Protein backbone atom coordinates (compact mmCIF):
# COMPACT_ATOMS: atom_id res chain seq x y z
CA UNK A 1 0.00 0.00 0.00
CA UNK A 2 1.38 3.33 -1.01
CA UNK A 3 0.69 5.58 1.96
CA UNK A 4 1.61 8.72 0.06
CA UNK A 5 -1.00 8.08 -2.58
CA UNK A 6 -3.12 11.08 -3.43
CA UNK A 7 -6.64 9.73 -3.14
CA UNK A 8 -8.33 12.14 -5.52
CA UNK A 9 -5.90 13.45 -8.11
CA UNK A 10 -8.39 14.72 -10.68
CA UNK A 11 -10.75 17.08 -8.83
CA UNK A 12 -7.94 19.66 -8.85
CA UNK A 13 -6.14 19.02 -12.14
CA UNK A 14 -2.81 20.80 -12.36
CA UNK A 15 -0.60 20.68 -15.49
CA UNK A 16 1.78 18.46 -13.54
CA UNK A 17 -0.86 15.84 -12.79
CA UNK A 18 -2.37 16.00 -16.25
CA UNK A 19 0.96 15.44 -18.01
CA UNK A 20 2.04 12.57 -15.77
CA UNK A 21 -1.33 10.84 -16.01
CA UNK A 22 -1.34 11.34 -19.79
CA UNK A 23 2.01 9.55 -20.07
CA UNK A 24 0.62 6.75 -17.91
CA UNK A 25 -2.53 6.22 -19.97
CA UNK A 26 -0.74 6.57 -23.33
CA UNK A 27 1.66 3.82 -22.33
CA UNK A 28 -1.10 1.53 -21.13
CA UNK A 29 -2.88 2.02 -24.45
CA UNK A 30 0.37 1.37 -26.30
CA UNK A 31 0.94 -1.95 -24.47
CA UNK A 32 -2.62 -3.10 -24.99
CA UNK A 33 -2.63 -2.25 -28.70
CA UNK A 34 0.64 -4.06 -29.31
CA UNK A 35 -0.31 -7.23 -27.41
CA UNK A 36 -3.95 -7.42 -28.49
CA UNK A 37 -2.85 -6.58 -32.04
CA UNK A 38 -0.76 -9.71 -32.12
CA UNK A 39 -3.64 -11.88 -30.95
CA UNK A 40 -6.15 -10.50 -33.48
CA UNK A 41 -3.68 -10.30 -36.42
CA UNK A 42 -4.37 -13.76 -37.94
CA UNK A 43 -7.95 -14.59 -39.01
CA UNK A 44 -9.64 -16.31 -36.08
CA UNK A 45 -10.23 -19.74 -37.76
CA UNK A 46 -6.56 -19.85 -38.80
CA UNK A 47 -5.52 -19.15 -35.20
CA UNK A 48 -7.75 -21.92 -33.87
CA UNK A 49 -6.40 -24.33 -36.47
CA UNK A 50 -2.80 -23.47 -35.55
CA UNK A 51 -3.58 -23.90 -31.87
CA UNK A 52 -4.78 -27.41 -32.64
CA UNK A 53 -1.82 -28.32 -34.86
CA UNK A 54 0.34 -31.27 -33.90
CA UNK A 55 3.43 -29.10 -33.48
CA UNK A 56 1.80 -26.59 -31.12
CA UNK A 57 0.17 -29.36 -29.07
CA UNK A 58 3.58 -31.03 -28.77
CA UNK A 59 5.16 -27.74 -27.70
CA UNK A 60 2.44 -27.15 -25.10
CA UNK A 61 2.90 -30.61 -23.65
CA UNK A 62 6.69 -30.41 -23.58
CA UNK A 63 6.56 -26.92 -22.04
CA UNK A 64 4.11 -28.05 -19.34
CA UNK A 65 6.09 -31.15 -18.43
CA UNK A 66 9.52 -29.49 -18.35
CA UNK A 67 8.30 -26.38 -16.51
CA UNK A 68 6.42 -28.37 -13.87
CA UNK A 69 9.44 -30.61 -13.25
CA UNK A 70 11.93 -27.73 -13.12
CA UNK A 71 9.63 -25.66 -10.86
CA UNK A 72 9.22 -28.58 -8.49
CA UNK A 73 13.00 -28.96 -8.34
CA UNK A 74 13.36 -25.21 -7.77
CA UNK A 75 10.96 -25.34 -4.81
CA UNK A 76 12.71 -28.33 -3.26
CA UNK A 77 16.09 -26.60 -3.59
CA UNK A 78 14.97 -23.07 -2.75
CA UNK A 79 13.22 -23.82 0.56
CA UNK A 80 16.33 -24.89 2.50
CA UNK A 81 18.50 -22.28 0.77
CA UNK A 82 16.06 -19.45 1.43
CA UNK A 83 15.45 -20.54 5.02
CA UNK A 84 19.19 -20.69 5.71
CA UNK A 85 19.70 -17.23 4.25
CA UNK A 86 16.77 -15.84 6.24
CA UNK A 87 17.52 -17.44 9.62
CA UNK A 88 21.03 -18.73 10.13
CA UNK A 89 24.16 -16.71 10.60
CA UNK A 90 27.24 -18.35 9.16
CA UNK A 91 30.55 -17.06 7.83
CA UNK A 92 30.23 -15.71 4.31
CA UNK A 93 26.47 -15.21 4.55
CA UNK A 94 26.58 -11.85 2.78
CA UNK A 95 28.74 -13.26 0.00
CA UNK A 96 26.42 -16.24 -0.51
CA UNK A 97 23.49 -13.85 -0.70
CA UNK A 98 25.22 -11.84 -3.43
CA UNK A 99 26.19 -14.98 -5.34
CA UNK A 100 22.56 -16.06 -5.39
CA UNK A 101 21.53 -12.67 -6.75
CA UNK A 102 24.09 -12.40 -9.56
CA UNK A 103 22.24 -14.82 -11.89
CA UNK A 104 19.25 -12.44 -11.75
CA UNK A 105 21.29 -9.98 -13.80
CA UNK A 106 23.03 -12.60 -15.94
CA UNK A 107 21.65 -12.95 -19.50
CA UNK A 108 20.11 -16.45 -19.78
CA UNK A 109 22.06 -16.98 -23.02
CA UNK A 110 25.29 -16.75 -21.04
CA UNK A 111 23.97 -19.19 -18.44
CA UNK A 112 23.04 -21.48 -21.34
CA UNK A 113 26.52 -21.40 -22.84
CA UNK A 114 28.08 -22.13 -19.45
CA UNK A 115 25.71 -25.07 -18.93
CA UNK A 116 26.45 -26.33 -22.47
CA UNK A 117 30.17 -26.39 -21.75
CA UNK A 118 29.64 -28.00 -18.31
CA UNK A 119 27.36 -30.83 -19.51
CA UNK A 120 29.03 -31.16 -22.94
CA UNK A 121 32.79 -31.22 -23.49
CA UNK A 122 33.85 -30.93 -19.84
CA UNK A 123 35.10 -33.95 -17.86
CA UNK A 124 31.84 -34.02 -15.90
CA UNK A 125 29.77 -33.99 -19.11
CA UNK A 126 31.82 -36.82 -20.59
CA UNK A 127 31.39 -38.82 -17.39
CA UNK A 128 27.60 -38.41 -17.54
CA UNK A 129 27.67 -39.47 -21.19
CA UNK A 130 29.64 -42.57 -20.30
CA UNK A 131 26.83 -43.49 -17.86
CA UNK A 132 24.36 -43.00 -20.70
CA UNK A 133 22.93 -39.77 -19.32
CA UNK A 134 22.81 -37.18 -22.09
CA UNK A 135 21.79 -33.72 -21.01
CA UNK A 136 22.80 -31.67 -24.05
CA UNK A 137 20.12 -31.26 -26.73
CA UNK A 138 17.58 -33.40 -24.84
CA UNK A 139 14.37 -32.57 -22.91
CA UNK A 140 16.38 -33.17 -19.70
CA UNK A 141 18.61 -30.31 -20.84
CA UNK A 142 15.52 -28.10 -20.99
CA UNK A 143 14.70 -28.90 -17.33
CA UNK A 144 18.31 -28.31 -16.29
CA UNK A 145 18.41 -24.94 -18.06
CA UNK A 146 15.09 -23.77 -16.59
CA UNK A 147 16.16 -24.86 -13.10
CA UNK A 148 19.49 -23.05 -13.32
CA UNK A 149 18.04 -19.77 -14.53
CA UNK A 150 15.00 -19.73 -12.23
CA UNK A 151 16.38 -20.95 -8.91
CA UNK A 152 17.63 -17.48 -7.86
CA UNK A 153 14.14 -16.02 -8.39
CA UNK A 154 12.55 -18.74 -6.33
CA UNK A 155 15.17 -18.28 -3.59
CA UNK A 156 14.56 -14.54 -3.51
CA UNK A 157 10.80 -14.75 -3.19
CA UNK A 158 10.97 -17.59 -0.67
CA UNK A 159 13.60 -15.85 1.44
CA UNK A 160 11.49 -12.75 1.64
CA UNK A 161 8.53 -14.91 2.71
CA UNK A 162 10.56 -16.51 5.53
CA UNK A 163 12.02 -13.19 6.62
CA UNK A 164 8.58 -11.76 7.35
CA UNK A 165 7.87 -14.56 9.87
CA UNK A 166 8.88 -13.78 13.45
CA UNK A 167 11.26 -16.55 14.62
CA UNK A 168 9.47 -16.50 17.97
CA UNK A 169 6.63 -18.46 16.36
CA UNK A 170 9.11 -21.30 15.89
CA UNK A 171 10.50 -20.83 19.42
CA UNK A 172 7.03 -21.17 20.91
CA UNK A 173 6.30 -24.23 18.77
CA UNK A 174 9.51 -25.83 20.06
CA UNK A 175 8.51 -25.25 23.70
CA UNK A 176 5.12 -26.79 22.86
CA UNK A 177 6.78 -30.06 21.89
CA UNK A 178 7.74 -29.66 18.22
CA UNK A 179 11.01 -30.89 16.79
CA UNK A 180 12.82 -28.44 14.52
CA UNK A 181 11.27 -30.25 11.56
CA UNK A 182 7.85 -30.19 13.18
CA UNK A 183 8.00 -26.46 13.90
CA UNK A 184 9.06 -25.83 10.31
CA UNK A 185 6.32 -27.97 8.83
CA UNK A 186 3.47 -26.96 11.14
CA UNK A 187 4.26 -23.29 11.70
CA UNK A 188 6.80 -21.80 9.30
CA UNK A 189 5.59 -23.38 6.08
CA UNK A 190 1.89 -22.57 6.62
CA UNK A 191 2.79 -18.97 7.54
CA UNK A 192 4.98 -18.70 4.41
CA UNK A 193 2.30 -20.28 2.24
CA UNK A 194 1.32 -17.23 0.22
CA UNK A 195 4.91 -16.26 -0.44
CA UNK A 196 5.72 -19.80 -1.52
CA UNK A 197 2.75 -19.94 -3.89
CA UNK A 198 3.73 -16.58 -5.36
CA UNK A 199 7.28 -17.80 -5.91
CA UNK A 200 6.07 -21.05 -7.37
CA UNK A 201 3.78 -19.34 -9.87
CA UNK A 202 6.32 -16.76 -11.01
CA UNK A 203 8.99 -19.45 -11.32
CA UNK A 204 6.69 -21.68 -13.32
CA UNK A 205 5.69 -18.91 -15.68
CA UNK A 206 9.33 -17.93 -16.18
CA UNK A 207 10.18 -21.57 -16.85
CA UNK A 208 7.50 -21.78 -19.55
CA UNK A 209 8.81 -18.62 -21.19
CA UNK A 210 12.53 -19.38 -20.86
CA UNK A 211 14.25 -19.21 -24.25
CA UNK A 212 17.95 -18.34 -24.20
CA UNK A 213 19.30 -20.94 -21.80
CA UNK A 214 16.85 -23.59 -23.05
CA UNK A 215 17.91 -23.06 -26.67
CA UNK A 216 21.60 -23.30 -25.79
CA UNK A 217 21.40 -26.47 -23.72
CA UNK A 218 18.30 -28.14 -25.15
CA UNK A 219 18.94 -27.12 -28.73
CA UNK A 220 16.04 -26.12 -30.97
CA UNK A 221 15.03 -29.40 -32.57
CA UNK A 222 11.54 -29.52 -34.08
CA UNK A 223 9.28 -32.04 -32.34
CA UNK A 224 12.06 -33.03 -29.92
CA UNK A 225 13.13 -30.11 -27.76
CA UNK A 226 10.50 -27.73 -29.04
CA UNK A 227 8.96 -25.80 -26.14
CA UNK A 228 6.56 -22.93 -26.81
CA UNK A 229 9.21 -20.20 -27.05
CA UNK A 230 11.33 -22.48 -29.27
CA UNK A 231 8.26 -23.18 -31.45
CA UNK A 232 7.73 -19.46 -31.75
CA UNK A 233 11.35 -18.96 -32.79
CA UNK A 234 11.50 -21.89 -35.26
CA UNK A 235 8.23 -20.96 -36.99
CA UNK A 236 9.15 -17.30 -37.14
CA UNK A 237 12.45 -18.17 -38.84
CA UNK A 238 10.70 -20.38 -41.39
CA UNK A 239 7.97 -17.83 -42.01
CA UNK A 240 5.07 -19.86 -40.52
CA UNK A 241 3.53 -16.77 -38.97
CA UNK A 242 0.24 -18.42 -37.89
CA UNK A 243 2.01 -21.09 -35.83
CA UNK A 244 4.37 -18.53 -34.31
CA UNK A 245 1.44 -16.35 -33.28
CA UNK A 246 -0.41 -19.36 -31.87
CA UNK A 247 2.58 -20.08 -29.63
CA UNK A 248 2.70 -16.41 -28.60
CA UNK A 249 -0.99 -16.33 -27.72
CA UNK A 250 -0.60 -19.29 -25.38
CA UNK A 251 2.41 -17.65 -23.75
CA UNK A 252 0.48 -14.38 -23.30
CA UNK A 253 -2.44 -16.17 -21.65
CA UNK A 254 -0.12 -18.08 -19.32
CA UNK A 255 1.79 -14.99 -18.25
CA UNK A 256 -1.34 -12.93 -17.63
CA UNK A 257 -2.92 -15.62 -15.49
CA UNK A 258 0.21 -16.42 -13.53
CA UNK A 259 0.97 -12.79 -12.88
CA UNK A 260 -2.54 -12.27 -11.56
CA UNK A 261 -2.04 -15.20 -9.17
CA UNK A 262 1.39 -13.89 -8.18
CA UNK A 263 0.04 -10.42 -7.38
CA UNK A 264 -2.75 -11.92 -5.30
CA UNK A 265 -0.41 -14.13 -3.30
CA UNK A 266 2.51 -11.80 -2.81
CA UNK A 267 0.18 -9.10 -1.47
CA UNK A 268 1.78 -5.75 -0.74
CA UNK A 269 5.14 -7.11 0.17
CA UNK A 270 6.87 -6.18 -3.07
CA UNK A 271 9.46 -8.89 -3.44
CA UNK A 272 11.23 -7.28 -6.39
Amino acid sequence: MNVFQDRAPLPRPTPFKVIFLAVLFCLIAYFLVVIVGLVVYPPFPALVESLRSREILFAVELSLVTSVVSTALCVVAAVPVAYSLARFSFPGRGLVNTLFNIPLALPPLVAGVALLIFYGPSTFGKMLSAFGLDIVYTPIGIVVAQFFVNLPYMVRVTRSAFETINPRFEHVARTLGCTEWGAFRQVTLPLARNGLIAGLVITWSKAIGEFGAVMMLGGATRMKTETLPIALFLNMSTGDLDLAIAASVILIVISVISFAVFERCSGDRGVF
Partner: protein
Amino acid sequence: MDLTVADGEYFIILGPTGAGKTILLETLAGIYTPDDGTITLDGRDITRTDPKDRGIGMVYQDYMLFPHLTVGENIGFGLRQRKADPASIREEVQETAALLGIERLLSRTPGTLSGGEQQRAAIARALVLRPHVLLLDEPLSALDTSTRDRLRRELRSICRATKTTVIHITHHFEDIFALADRVAVMQEGRVIQTGTPDEVFRKPASEFVAAFTGMENVYCGVSRVLNGEAAIDLGGITVRTVSEIEGEVCVGIRPEEVILSREPFESSAANTFPGRVTEVQRNGTFSRVFVEAGVLFIAVLTPQSVERLRLAEGVAVQVTFKASAVHVFLR
Protein backbone atom coordinates in the same frame (compact mmCIF):
# COMPACT_ATOMS: atom_id res chain seq x y z
CA MET B 1 24.64 -15.56 36.96
CA ASP B 2 23.36 -17.93 39.63
CA LEU B 3 19.63 -18.29 40.17
CA THR B 4 17.66 -20.93 42.02
CA VAL B 5 13.88 -21.01 41.85
CA ALA B 6 11.99 -23.23 44.27
CA ASP B 7 9.23 -25.61 43.26
CA GLY B 8 5.86 -23.87 42.96
CA GLU B 9 7.42 -20.47 43.48
CA TYR B 10 6.33 -17.33 41.65
CA PHE B 11 9.68 -15.76 40.77
CA ILE B 12 9.93 -12.33 39.19
CA ILE B 13 12.95 -10.98 37.36
CA LEU B 14 12.98 -7.22 37.38
CA GLY B 15 15.19 -5.09 35.20
CA PRO B 16 15.25 -2.32 32.65
CA THR B 17 14.80 -2.93 28.92
CA GLY B 18 17.98 -4.34 27.40
CA ALA B 19 19.18 -6.11 30.55
CA GLY B 20 19.13 -9.46 28.73
CA LYS B 21 15.95 -10.76 30.34
CA THR B 22 14.33 -12.23 27.23
CA ILE B 23 17.53 -14.02 26.22
CA LEU B 24 17.67 -15.48 29.74
CA LEU B 25 14.17 -16.93 29.37
CA GLU B 26 14.88 -18.23 25.87
CA THR B 27 17.99 -19.92 27.17
CA LEU B 28 15.97 -21.53 29.99
CA ALA B 29 13.45 -22.70 27.39
CA GLY B 30 16.25 -24.17 25.30
CA ILE B 31 16.05 -21.89 22.26
CA TYR B 32 19.68 -20.93 22.82
CA THR B 33 22.43 -23.06 24.31
CA PRO B 34 24.58 -21.28 26.90
CA ASP B 35 28.32 -20.97 26.18
CA ASP B 36 29.01 -22.38 29.63
CA GLY B 37 27.17 -23.10 32.87
CA THR B 38 24.36 -25.51 33.53
CA ILE B 39 20.58 -25.44 33.83
CA THR B 40 19.06 -27.92 36.26
CA LEU B 41 15.39 -28.78 36.57
CA ASP B 42 14.20 -31.04 39.43
CA GLY B 43 17.78 -32.24 39.87
CA ARG B 44 18.12 -33.14 36.19
CA ASP B 45 20.73 -31.37 34.01
CA ILE B 46 18.77 -30.00 31.03
CA THR B 47 21.47 -27.73 29.61
CA ARG B 48 21.60 -29.73 26.37
CA THR B 49 18.02 -31.04 26.39
CA ASP B 50 15.86 -30.27 23.37
CA PRO B 51 13.23 -27.60 24.14
CA LYS B 52 10.42 -30.03 23.38
CA ASP B 53 11.58 -32.39 26.15
CA ARG B 54 12.11 -29.78 28.87
CA GLY B 55 8.54 -29.33 30.03
CA ILE B 56 9.02 -25.57 30.11
CA GLY B 57 6.27 -23.34 28.75
CA MET B 58 6.94 -19.89 27.32
CA VAL B 59 4.68 -16.90 26.83
CA TYR B 60 5.95 -13.85 25.00
CA GLN B 61 4.88 -10.25 25.50
CA ASP B 62 3.47 -10.18 21.95
CA TYR B 63 1.57 -13.47 22.43
CA MET B 64 2.87 -15.23 19.29
CA LEU B 65 -0.41 -17.06 18.73
CA PHE B 66 -0.23 -18.96 15.46
CA PRO B 67 -2.30 -16.80 13.10
CA HIS B 68 -3.20 -19.69 10.79
CA LEU B 69 -4.91 -21.65 13.57
CA THR B 70 -8.01 -20.93 15.65
CA VAL B 71 -7.70 -20.16 19.35
CA GLY B 72 -8.77 -23.74 20.14
CA GLU B 73 -6.19 -25.19 17.74
CA ASN B 74 -3.56 -22.92 19.25
CA ILE B 75 -4.30 -24.15 22.77
CA GLY B 76 -4.43 -27.76 21.56
CA PHE B 77 -1.21 -27.42 19.56
CA GLY B 78 1.07 -28.90 22.22
CA LEU B 79 -1.33 -31.75 23.03
CA ARG B 80 -1.46 -32.64 19.34
CA GLN B 81 2.33 -32.92 19.31
CA ARG B 82 1.95 -35.55 22.02
CA LYS B 83 -0.41 -37.44 19.73
CA ALA B 84 -3.19 -37.31 22.31
CA ASP B 85 -6.55 -38.49 21.01
CA PRO B 86 -8.83 -35.73 19.65
CA ALA B 87 -11.55 -36.21 22.26
CA SER B 88 -9.19 -35.74 25.19
CA ILE B 89 -7.53 -32.78 23.44
CA ARG B 90 -10.92 -31.11 23.08
CA GLU B 91 -11.70 -31.76 26.72
CA GLU B 92 -8.41 -30.40 28.05
CA VAL B 93 -8.56 -27.36 25.77
CA GLN B 94 -12.08 -26.63 27.07
CA GLU B 95 -10.96 -26.99 30.66
CA THR B 96 -7.93 -24.72 30.35
CA ALA B 97 -9.86 -22.17 28.29
CA ALA B 98 -12.51 -22.08 31.01
CA LEU B 99 -9.78 -21.50 33.61
CA LEU B 100 -8.75 -18.38 31.69
CA GLY B 101 -12.28 -17.33 30.80
CA ILE B 102 -11.91 -17.67 27.03
CA GLU B 103 -14.04 -20.75 26.38
CA ARG B 104 -16.30 -18.75 24.07
CA LEU B 105 -13.40 -17.71 21.81
CA LEU B 106 -12.14 -21.16 20.82
CA SER B 107 -13.34 -21.05 17.23
CA ARG B 108 -12.09 -17.51 16.54
CA THR B 109 -8.77 -16.71 14.90
CA PRO B 110 -6.18 -14.80 16.96
CA GLY B 111 -6.34 -11.71 14.74
CA THR B 112 -9.92 -11.01 15.85
CA LEU B 113 -9.12 -10.96 19.59
CA SER B 114 -8.24 -8.06 21.87
CA GLY B 115 -4.77 -7.92 23.44
CA GLY B 116 -6.00 -9.26 26.78
CA GLU B 117 -7.83 -12.15 25.11
CA GLN B 118 -4.77 -13.01 23.03
CA GLN B 119 -2.60 -13.06 26.14
CA ARG B 120 -5.08 -15.34 27.91
CA ALA B 121 -5.02 -17.68 24.92
CA ALA B 122 -1.21 -17.66 24.89
CA ILE B 123 -1.10 -18.47 28.61
CA ALA B 124 -3.69 -21.22 28.12
CA ARG B 125 -1.63 -22.69 25.26
CA ALA B 126 1.37 -23.01 27.59
CA LEU B 127 -0.60 -24.09 30.72
CA VAL B 128 -2.57 -26.87 29.03
CA LEU B 129 0.63 -28.95 28.87
CA ARG B 130 1.04 -28.62 32.67
CA PRO B 131 4.65 -27.43 32.36
CA HIS B 132 7.12 -27.84 35.22
CA VAL B 133 8.01 -24.19 34.74
CA LEU B 134 6.08 -21.40 33.03
CA LEU B 135 8.17 -18.56 31.61
CA LEU B 136 6.37 -15.25 31.17
CA ASP B 137 8.14 -12.54 29.20
CA GLU B 138 6.51 -9.24 30.17
CA PRO B 139 3.07 -10.83 29.82
CA LEU B 140 1.18 -7.72 30.96
CA SER B 141 3.18 -4.94 29.35
CA ALA B 142 1.26 -4.68 26.10
CA LEU B 143 -2.13 -4.39 27.81
CA ASP B 144 -4.09 -1.34 28.94
CA THR B 145 -4.15 -0.58 32.66
CA SER B 146 -7.52 -2.06 33.63
CA THR B 147 -6.99 -5.24 31.58
CA ARG B 148 -3.54 -5.55 33.09
CA ASP B 149 -4.85 -5.25 36.66
CA ARG B 150 -7.53 -7.86 36.06
CA LEU B 151 -5.26 -10.33 34.31
CA ARG B 152 -2.60 -9.84 36.97
CA ARG B 153 -5.02 -10.88 39.68
CA GLU B 154 -6.19 -13.91 37.69
CA LEU B 155 -2.65 -14.91 36.85
CA ARG B 156 -1.85 -15.19 40.52
CA SER B 157 -4.87 -17.30 41.43
CA ILE B 158 -4.38 -19.56 38.38
CA CYS B 159 -0.72 -20.17 39.14
CA ARG B 160 -1.51 -20.87 42.79
CA ALA B 161 -4.35 -23.21 41.83
CA THR B 162 -2.26 -25.17 39.32
CA LYS B 163 0.85 -25.03 41.58
CA THR B 164 2.93 -23.99 38.57
CA THR B 165 6.44 -22.69 39.09
CA VAL B 166 6.59 -19.34 37.31
CA ILE B 167 9.47 -17.17 36.18
CA HIS B 168 8.05 -13.84 35.17
CA ILE B 169 9.98 -10.98 33.64
CA THR B 170 8.82 -7.43 34.07
CA HIS B 171 9.88 -3.84 34.39
CA HIS B 172 6.73 -2.88 36.30
CA PHE B 173 7.23 -3.05 39.99
CA GLU B 174 3.47 -3.26 40.58
CA ASP B 175 3.75 -6.85 39.34
CA ILE B 176 6.10 -7.69 42.17
CA PHE B 177 3.79 -6.97 45.09
CA ALA B 178 0.81 -8.51 43.36
CA LEU B 179 2.53 -11.69 42.23
CA ALA B 180 6.02 -12.47 43.42
CA ASP B 181 7.17 -14.84 46.13
CA ARG B 182 10.75 -13.86 45.35
CA VAL B 183 12.45 -11.31 43.10
CA ALA B 184 15.73 -11.02 41.23
CA VAL B 185 16.97 -7.70 39.91
CA MET B 186 18.95 -7.80 36.67
CA GLN B 187 21.29 -5.24 35.21
CA GLU B 188 23.40 -5.59 32.05
CA GLY B 189 23.01 -9.34 31.89
CA ARG B 190 23.84 -9.93 35.57
CA VAL B 191 21.67 -10.63 38.59
CA ILE B 192 22.55 -8.06 41.21
CA GLN B 193 20.07 -8.96 43.93
CA THR B 194 17.62 -11.69 44.86
CA GLY B 195 15.23 -11.86 47.79
CA THR B 196 11.64 -11.49 48.80
CA PRO B 197 9.90 -8.36 47.51
CA ASP B 198 10.22 -6.84 50.99
CA GLU B 199 13.97 -7.44 51.14
CA VAL B 200 14.61 -6.06 47.68
CA PHE B 201 12.61 -2.91 48.31
CA ARG B 202 13.58 -2.28 51.92
CA LYS B 203 17.25 -3.12 51.58
CA PRO B 204 18.26 -2.45 47.99
CA ALA B 205 21.64 -4.10 47.47
CA SER B 206 22.95 -1.25 45.38
CA GLU B 207 22.21 2.28 44.31
CA PHE B 208 20.96 0.80 41.05
CA VAL B 209 18.28 -1.24 42.74
CA ALA B 210 17.25 1.70 44.88
CA ALA B 211 17.10 4.01 41.90
CA PHE B 212 15.28 1.48 39.77
CA THR B 213 12.66 0.67 42.35
CA GLY B 214 12.77 4.15 43.86
CA MET B 215 10.42 3.09 46.66
CA GLU B 216 12.14 2.22 49.86
CA ASN B 217 9.08 2.81 52.01
CA VAL B 218 6.80 -0.01 51.01
CA TYR B 219 4.04 -1.27 53.30
CA CYS B 220 1.12 -3.57 52.88
CA GLY B 221 -2.29 -2.98 54.36
CA VAL B 222 -6.01 -2.67 53.78
CA SER B 223 -7.49 0.26 51.91
CA ARG B 224 -10.97 1.69 52.49
CA VAL B 225 -12.26 4.33 50.10
CA LEU B 226 -14.77 6.98 51.19
CA ASN B 227 -15.70 9.85 48.85
CA GLY B 228 -12.54 9.33 46.78
CA GLU B 229 -10.31 9.46 49.84
CA ALA B 230 -8.56 6.27 50.81
CA ALA B 231 -7.64 5.41 54.37
CA ILE B 232 -5.07 2.67 54.37
CA ASP B 233 -4.59 0.76 57.58
CA LEU B 234 -0.97 -0.38 57.78
CA GLY B 235 -1.35 -2.04 61.16
CA GLY B 236 0.34 0.54 63.34
CA ILE B 237 -0.88 3.66 61.53
CA THR B 238 -3.44 4.76 58.96
CA VAL B 239 -2.22 6.60 55.88
CA ARG B 240 -4.49 8.95 53.92
CA THR B 241 -4.36 9.44 50.19
CA VAL B 242 -6.50 9.89 47.08
CA SER B 243 -7.15 6.56 45.39
CA GLU B 244 -9.93 4.40 44.00
CA ILE B 245 -8.23 1.17 44.98
CA GLU B 246 -9.85 -0.75 47.80
CA GLY B 247 -8.92 -3.94 49.62
CA GLU B 248 -5.51 -5.56 50.03
CA VAL B 249 -2.92 -3.05 48.83
CA CYS B 250 0.67 -2.02 49.08
CA VAL B 251 1.74 1.60 49.35
CA GLY B 252 5.04 3.06 48.33
CA ILE B 253 6.55 6.38 49.42
CA ARG B 254 9.83 7.70 48.03
CA PRO B 255 12.22 8.52 50.89
CA GLU B 256 12.94 11.97 49.42
CA GLU B 257 9.24 12.84 49.89
CA VAL B 258 9.30 12.15 53.62
CA ILE B 259 9.72 15.30 55.71
CA LEU B 260 11.12 15.16 59.26
CA SER B 261 10.59 17.85 61.88
CA ARG B 262 11.13 18.21 65.65
CA GLU B 263 7.64 19.66 66.29
CA PRO B 264 4.31 19.07 64.54
CA PHE B 265 3.63 21.93 62.09
CA GLU B 266 0.50 23.06 60.36
CA SER B 267 0.58 22.36 56.61
CA SER B 268 -1.35 21.01 53.67
CA ALA B 269 0.22 17.56 54.11
CA ALA B 270 -2.38 14.95 55.07
CA ASN B 271 -0.12 12.55 56.94
CA THR B 272 1.81 13.33 60.10
CA PHE B 273 2.98 10.67 62.55
CA PRO B 274 5.07 10.97 65.72
CA GLY B 275 8.07 8.66 65.88
CA ARG B 276 11.58 8.07 67.10
CA VAL B 277 14.83 7.95 65.11
CA THR B 278 16.37 4.47 65.16
CA GLU B 279 19.37 5.02 62.92
CA VAL B 280 21.15 7.69 60.90
CA GLN B 281 23.26 6.53 57.97
CA ARG B 282 25.63 9.15 56.59
CA ASN B 283 26.78 8.33 53.10
CA GLY B 284 27.96 10.99 50.67
CA THR B 285 25.71 13.86 49.68
CA PHE B 286 22.63 12.50 51.44
CA SER B 287 21.90 10.83 54.75
CA ARG B 288 19.30 8.17 55.37
CA VAL B 289 17.32 8.53 58.56
CA PHE B 290 15.28 5.58 59.85
CA VAL B 291 12.26 6.52 61.97
CA GLU B 292 10.02 4.10 63.84
CA ALA B 293 6.51 5.61 63.79
CA GLY B 294 4.25 2.59 63.92
CA VAL B 295 5.99 1.40 60.78
CA LEU B 296 9.62 2.01 59.84
CA PHE B 297 10.05 5.08 57.61
CA ILE B 298 13.18 5.95 55.68
CA ALA B 299 13.81 9.62 54.89
CA VAL B 300 16.56 11.07 52.76
CA LEU B 301 17.99 14.34 54.13
CA THR B 302 21.01 16.49 53.47
CA PRO B 303 23.72 16.25 56.18
CA GLN B 304 23.03 19.96 56.88
CA SER B 305 19.41 19.18 57.78
CA VAL B 306 20.47 16.27 59.97
CA GLU B 307 22.84 18.70 61.69
CA ARG B 308 20.26 21.49 62.06
CA LEU B 309 17.58 19.17 63.51
CA ARG B 310 20.24 17.47 65.68
CA LEU B 311 18.94 14.07 64.55
CA ALA B 312 20.43 11.05 66.26
CA GLU B 313 19.29 7.70 67.56
CA GLY B 314 16.45 8.02 70.06
CA VAL B 315 15.41 11.58 69.12
CA ALA B 316 11.63 12.14 68.88
CA VAL B 317 10.55 13.49 65.45
CA GLN B 318 7.44 14.03 63.37
CA VAL B 319 7.16 12.21 60.03
CA THR B 320 5.16 14.17 57.42
CA PHE B 321 4.24 13.48 53.81
CA LYS B 322 1.59 14.62 51.36
CA ALA B 323 -1.27 12.44 50.17
CA SER B 324 0.11 12.70 46.63
CA ALA B 325 3.42 11.15 47.77
CA VAL B 326 1.60 7.89 48.56
CA HIS B 327 1.54 5.43 45.63
CA VAL B 328 -1.02 2.67 46.00
CA PHE B 329 -0.76 -0.74 44.27
CA LEU B 330 -3.15 -3.59 44.35
CA ARG B 331 -1.69 -6.61 46.08
